């Protein structure tokens, strides 16, 4: 019988072939924790006396939820993780480097990997065709130490997406639409597997958004077959050698097949306090908003900033709206600065926080006042999520956030047709050492060319000595001309002064 992506990848990491429903022990390739879940993982390992990690090079501890530390208790938690990294050789992603799910996919995850993370949005890695899933601190701690975990091989929902996105409709709208359709528990314990021409054409940024929100339908993973787009992304991230094409078998068994035609979609907004409480934009328009937020592991990439920058460029933010923007990683931050989007957002009136989770977790920064409403590019809008149980959170795409920031109320981004048409083809963020290497090489080459040119010039100059006399003659002529001009100018100013003086005198009389 054919295998789904989940069955294939888990099978490669377990003893022998696996089938949905089976419980297996599987090898783990990548482990991640963050500052909210990592300290508990460290304490569990201390309890067990397990100090050695199975694979420290692919264990990453992120400081991203409270950055820079907002309280002494959290600063101490950061210390715990720093010390643990030093002791075990695990990688530490410092405050300001970015969100775990953004950075881990930029730098660590490869197709065919199993990744477990002490954060529910670990499923983002499915965009690179890794079986990536969120677990608790203890499960991840044991995975870090023993290099394995137990898994129930999930049944799979096949999501087939066809058609072209209408202008102003994005992958974020697609995933909100799907969750609205199947419900926040519609895929509990299942894996989602994305197929169809729309997914094949979709860039990596869009795919990361889709996989990121799999957990909001209850799913264990959100997998996308690896293809040319995956290869290109990995190459740009400096690990093209890690590319592997993984596709499900044509006769794989799916529990459910869902077909979506995106050409029929409109922008979608999730209303408080549930992700599956979705409305199409026409039913959402007009809702007054106090704060908008561009950021989180769902939508904080260069392409998201580009869409927002294009819509808000040269316009004025509505005075009743606060606009918070947070780039997903420091590499993204540098790139949006280089491309000018950062400046555009500042000019528009946005406030920009350092790379990290920002206001999404309600730890600090951007906490809502009682009764206030926020439209965000986040992935969940549960009561109390942004630090105040009396606040109201609405979810949408970056484009809808931009349109809303201008209007002061939820607005339809499709009204900005010209601005949206101007959005160029999204470029994947150049981030890694490989990219830096290419840039360095380019610079060196340019320098060499300049040097060669200068040398040639010098040689030519030596050869053309006689021409010099002519040049000198010309120069003498020029100097003479300039002298004459100066004299004339002096005469003119003298004349002017004289006229003024006479005028003054006549006035006095």
């Amino acid at each position, binding site marked *: 019988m054919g295998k789904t992506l989940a069955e294939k990848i888990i099978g490669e990491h377990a003893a022998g072939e696996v089938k949905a429903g089976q419980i297996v022990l599987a090898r783990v390739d990548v482990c991640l924790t963050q500052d909210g879940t990592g300290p508990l993982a460290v304490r569990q390992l201390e309890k067990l006396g397990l100090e050695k990690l199975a694979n420290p090079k692919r264990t990453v501890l992120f400081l991203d939820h409270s950055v820079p530390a907002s309280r002494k208790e959290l600063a101490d938690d950061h210390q715990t993780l720093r010390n643990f990294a030093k002791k075990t050789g695990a990688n530490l992603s410092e405050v300001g480097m970015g969100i775990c799910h953004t950075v881990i996919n930029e730098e660590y995850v490869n197709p065919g990997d199993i990744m477990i993370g002490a954060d529910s949005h670990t499923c983002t890695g499915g965009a690179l065709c890794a079986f990536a899933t969120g677990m608790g601190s*203890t499960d991840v701690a044991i995975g870090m130490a023993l290099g394995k975990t137990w898994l129930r091989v999930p049944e799979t929902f096949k999501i087939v997406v066809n058609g072209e996105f209408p202008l102003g409709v994005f992958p974020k709208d697609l995933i909100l639409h799907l969750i609205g359709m199947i419900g926040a528990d519609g895929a509990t314990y299942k894996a989602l597997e994305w197929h169809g021409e729309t997914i094949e054409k979709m860039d990596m940024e869009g795919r990361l958004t889709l996989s990121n929100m799999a957990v909001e339908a209850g799913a264990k993973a959100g997998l996308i077959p690896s293809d040319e787009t995956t290869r290109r992304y990995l190459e740009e991230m400096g690990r093209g050698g890690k590319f592997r094409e993984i596709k499900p078998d044509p006769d794989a068994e799916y529990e459910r097949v869902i077909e979506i035609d995106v050409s029929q979609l409109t922008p979608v907004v999730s209303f408080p306090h549930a992700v599956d409480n979705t409305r199409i934009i026409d039913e959402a328009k007009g809702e007054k908003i106090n704060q908008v937020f561009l950021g989180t592991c769902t939508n904080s990439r260069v392409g998201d900033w580009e869409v927002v920058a294009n819509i808000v460029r040269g316009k004025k933010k509505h005075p009743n709206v606060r606009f918070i923007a947070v780039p997903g990683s420091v590499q993204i931050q540098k790139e949006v600065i280089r491309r000018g989007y950062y400046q555009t957002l500042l000019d528009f009136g946005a406030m920009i926080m350092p790379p990290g989770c920002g206001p999404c977790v309600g730890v600090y920064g951007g906490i809502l006042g009682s009764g206030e409403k926020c439209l965000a590019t986040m992935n969940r809008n549960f009561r109390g999520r942004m630090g105040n149980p009396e606040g109201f959170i609405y979810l949408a795409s970056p484009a809808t956030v931009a349109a809303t920031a201008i209007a002061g109320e939820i607005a339809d981004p499709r009204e900005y047709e010209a601005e949206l048409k101007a959005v160029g083809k999204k470029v994947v963020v150049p981030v890694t050492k490989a990219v830096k290497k290419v840039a360095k090489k380019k610079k060196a080459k340019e320098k060499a060319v300049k040097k060669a040119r200068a040398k040639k010039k010098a040689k030519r100059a030596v050869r053309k000595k006689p021409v010099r006399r002519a040049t000198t003659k010309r120069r003498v002529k020029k100097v003479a001309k300039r002298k004459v001009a100066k004299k004339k100018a002096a005469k003119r100013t003298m004349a002017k002064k004289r006229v003024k003086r006479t005028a003054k005198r006549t006035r006095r009389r």
Partner: protein
Amino acid sequence: MLFKGKVFKFGDDISTDHIAPGRLFHLRSNLPELAKHVLEDADPTFASRVKPGDFVVGGKNFGLGSSREHAPTIIELAGVSAVLAKSFARIFYRNAINVGLPVLICDTDRINDGDELEVDLEQGYVKDLTNGEEMKFDPLPPVMIKILNDGGLVAHIQKHGDFKLD
């Protein structure tokens, strides 16, 4: 194991933000303190009213959202003997077993707030002593029964030195 206690009934979709909100992030390394706020955003009076042995009863999709293991941990620390719901979110379910908190799937529509409940983990039944309703709950997968019987995942690994699934 036989448990007896009072029911604290909650609705559908109780998220980990309801149970252990992000604004109390700084208490995550001080679990007894965090436990004083357990389920605060669903019912601010719960933490002060719950007594050892009581039950938390939810609707569907209990524990959705974040992977924070602190959520089931503080429910357990508050003395709750088991959580009953029509369905659980995946990560919460797994975390609960790992921290030694029984999570039982049954038709909770038949249980009311304030009822006296009797739960027998071995026999697999729930008895509402107030309205006389009696029902079976779905059995846990064998691997989870093993971890739960050992007293959670840390104790399981301590005991066997590795995962022992069979």
